[in-house]
């Protein structure tokens, strides 16, 4: 198989683009796709300070690497979620990436700084872990962006993430969420601007970028996320993609072009007035924000090892059937995946 650009030996075939690339031209393709997304959606400019949400996974490390390659002023923020050996490996990988490139990585340790971890929060609140995880991450990204003087928060959501969230929102006709789904969430009343520069790349492409750039990332899946509905949507979309390359791209980008605006009024109408949290000052619709209420509830609880929670979760899923996971928790997972905010 030959590279479409230079006729050298190809290392990857992208059926949705009807193209094959050698290493050099695939890396250039990725940079071009990200540059195009940033420009088309007016995400940020060369003078803006960008805070990259870093997890140690392929998407966030590829994103950080690509932004630096494109010349942007990008610093990372890593949140230690306290998910056993998974978090230990994620921390080590994120720190090693930043150190090897001389980049600035800000770190927040949930257990040390806020007195809880995600397995314990999930056990105390009796909700799926993605709920407290998404809430914690969104709050802390916002807070660090605000206090650190960053212009924008960039997350590693890729085309597969966005198409899967869109599918979930369509299947359940979540019109309010459909009205908010976009590659850019503008700054509003104390919430920083949030952008998704990888929306033009599939996750197969971000993983390939990491392999070909020699980026060591965490291949293992978060033990708390196994079996969630979002993953099943991705599998369904990939089955369609295999039969008809380009389906995911058309589904998401045609939605943005032809349908998203129809849902904007509903999303705007549902926006409630924001005021500062009386505890931490973050914008919220309640007197005390959801993050502070979570911390108050779970801080000081006996730590729950991830293995215990994992086995309980598996038993519960077997008993109830995965399709009947709590609707509120599912909304949290969906919002986390979309980078959207769940307001109290």
């Amino acid at each position, binding site marked *: *198989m030959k590279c479409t650009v230079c006729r050298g030996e*190809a*290392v*990857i*075939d992208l059926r949705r683009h009807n193209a*094959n690339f050698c*290493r050099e031209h695939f890396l250039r393709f990725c940079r071009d796709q990200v540059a195009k997304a940033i420009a088309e959606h007016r995400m940020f400019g060369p003078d803006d300070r960008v805070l990259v*949400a870093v*997890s140690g*996974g*392929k*998407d*966030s490390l590829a*994103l950080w690497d690509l932004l630096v390659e494109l010349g942007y002023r990008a610093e990372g923020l890593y949140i230690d979620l306290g998910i056993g050996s998974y978090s230990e490996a994620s921390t080590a990988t994120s720190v090693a990436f930043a150190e090897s490139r001389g980049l600035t990585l800000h770190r927040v340790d949930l257990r040390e700084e806020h007195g809880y971890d995600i397995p314990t929060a999930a056990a105390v609140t009796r909700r799926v872990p*993605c709920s407290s*995880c*998404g809430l914690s*991450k969104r709050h802390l990204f916002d807070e660090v962006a605000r206090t650190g003087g960053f212009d924008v928060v960039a*997350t*590693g*959501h890729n085309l*597969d*993430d966005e198409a*899967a*969230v869109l599918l979930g929102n369509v299947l359940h006709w979540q019109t309010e969420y459909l009205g908010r789904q976009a590659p850019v969430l503008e700054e509003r009343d104390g919430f920083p601007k949030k952008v998704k520069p990888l929306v033009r790349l*599939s*996750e*197969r492409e*971000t*993983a*390939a970028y990491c*392999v*070909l750039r*020699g980026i060591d990332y965490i*291949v*293992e*899946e*978060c033990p708390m*996320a196994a079996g*969630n509905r*979002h*993953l099943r949507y*991705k*599998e369904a979309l*990939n*089955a369609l*993609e*295999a039969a008809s390359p380009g389906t995911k791209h058309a589904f998401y980008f045609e939605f943005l072009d032809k349908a998203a605006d129809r849902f904007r009024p509903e999303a705007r109408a549902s926006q409630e007035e924001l005021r500062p949290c009386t505890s931490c000052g973050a914008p919220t619709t309640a007197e005390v924000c959801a993050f502070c209420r979570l911390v108050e509830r779970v801080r000081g609880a006996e730590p729950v090892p991830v293995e215990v929670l994992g086995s309980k979760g598996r038993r519960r899923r077997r008993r109830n059937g995965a399709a009947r996971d709590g609707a509120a928790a599912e909304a949290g*997972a969906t919002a*986390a*995946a979309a980078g959207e905010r769940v307001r109290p």
Partner: protein
Amino acid sequence: MRVVLRNPRRELEVAGPISVTKLLRQLDLNRESVLVVRGDTLVAGDAVLSDDDTVEIRPVISGGAS
């Protein structure tokens, strides 16, 4: 050839020569959901793998939140 699978990590022996596309079909894997890694690079769908190759089939689907 030796085929390394992830999540959970396990190994298989598969007879070569065989193309990447055929190998994935034989293992009932969707090529949109995986990469085939040999050493520090990738192998494209029509590449033929030989008996003495070692390849990793790496899943690319992740939970979503970054």
